[in-house]
């Protein structure tokens, strides 16, 4: 069963692709964006966060927003190209993330009923 953040059932759970391209130091909005993803996941929606460009630094172990996202059931993907460009080896990333190619994000984006936001 899916529920709203306040415990009410969600009538129409949606699929979200939330793309974070900014580093966690870029200002409070980056962290808020990830918290928005967590709220959606806690409300019962299907949420995947795709970290790209400097957003991949949020995949470092110990980032609190990421821990909360995983706990809420959201999947977190890390763009392989962006991570490689920043010398971030997969083994150095949080255990809560999956390194994927842009093709995975494209496939999800184009899937039926997927709503996407790029930040």
């Amino acid at each position: 069963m899916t529920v709203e953040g306040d415990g009410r059932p969600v009538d129409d759970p949606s699929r979200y692709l939330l793309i974070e391209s900014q580093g966690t130091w870029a200002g409070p909005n980056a962290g808020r964006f990830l918290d928005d993803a967590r709220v959606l996941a806690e409300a019962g929606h299907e949420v995947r966060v795709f970290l790209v460009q400097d957003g991949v630094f949020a995949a470092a172990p110990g980032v609190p927003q990421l821990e909360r996202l995983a706990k809420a059931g959201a999947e977190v993907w890390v763009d392989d190209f962006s991570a490689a460009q920043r010398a971030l080896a997969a083994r150095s990333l949080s255990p809560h993330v999956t390194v994927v190619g842009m093709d995975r994000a494209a496939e999800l984006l184009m899937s039926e009923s997927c709503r996407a936001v790029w930040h």
Partner: protein
Amino acid sequence: MAGTITQRRWDLLLVVTAAPHSNDVITSALRLAQSVLDQGRTVRLWACGYANMLTQTTHGDTKLINTRDPEGVYPSSSRVVRDMLAANPGTFAWIACTACSAERGATSHINEVRFRSPMRFVSTIEGADKTVFIGGA
């Protein structure tokens, strides 16, 4: 009886408003466009603001010489866009905003780019099944 005009539909519209050289956002946008094209979908890209500088003829085909690799050849953004359009005929399109281009004195786009007035921005969005804004509104 008057005929009806059927607007062509596109699978994805990418509206790129981000400042193109502030980070690697254009690389990401083009990678996403290419991945969607590789899945047999159609993609349209609307260049907004300074993204209109990417397709200027003044760039030529190559970037300036890389002094650490003087023999290397690095395609310009104009060349990259032109090659993507040539490789995906009818499935990929690049739109230059007339107002953004004129405001910047950047109206010398490569021939493959289509001009479109911002007055048609909403209808362009309506013509796509999905729209993603990259860089904020």
